């Protein structure tokens, strides 16, 4: 399936925003495992996900065409 990946802050320096074409992934826990094994720096960071522009706290089902934002700790203000 197709996931539109959007990355921010320091994460955007090694994991670029992109269209991901992946199979065998149906929820955000699986996506995190996939990303952390492909982008090792991510495993060392605290980060949050937003699915279709909604911040998620728990494992969330993914559909083809969903957008997933990968966000390091916020540092506004």
């Amino acid at each position, binding site marked *: 399936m197709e996931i539109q990946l*959007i990355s*921010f*802050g*320091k994460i955007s320096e090694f994991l670029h925003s992109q269209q991901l074409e992946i199979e065998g992934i149906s929820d955000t826990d699986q996506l995190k495992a996939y990303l952390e094994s492909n982008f090792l720096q991510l495993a060392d960071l605290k980060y949050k996900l*937003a699915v279709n*522009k*909604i*911040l998620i706290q728990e494992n969330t089902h993914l559909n083809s065409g969903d957008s997933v*934002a990968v*966000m*390091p*700790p*916020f*540092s*506004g*203000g």
Partner: protein
Amino acid sequence: MESKKKVKNIFIQGAISPGFITDCIAKHSSNTAIGGHSIFMGQVRQDEIGGKLVSAIAYSAFEELALEKMHEIREAIFEKYPLSCMHVHHSLGDVSAGEICLFVFTSSAHRKPAIEACSELVERIKAELPIWGKEIFQDNTHHWKENK
């Protein structure tokens, strides 16, 4: 109360100018029900990190999510405190050391709600809005800011 209020834009490109702040303050003297105004302004510090001086912070945000979240915070604060007005502005892009990057302004009939709402807004903005600051050094290297 209307629950589908318009989502306001809080973002300003570059620094928040003293003139902008002044205009915002001057507009409120006509409201004679107000007894107290509380303001917080965040300013970019010329911090020294590893022997290098910060010359600016470049702010980026997940704008849509930030504006939705800010809308939610705004409604919660209006619900919690009897405020006359609430204004929040945050910079995007480059803000030089010494310039203002955050402006929060609350007004109420009495001082306590204005002061408490302003302080709570600043905490929530820092903790909950998807905004990132990249500290740019004078030699053009950078360091991603971390809020404490």
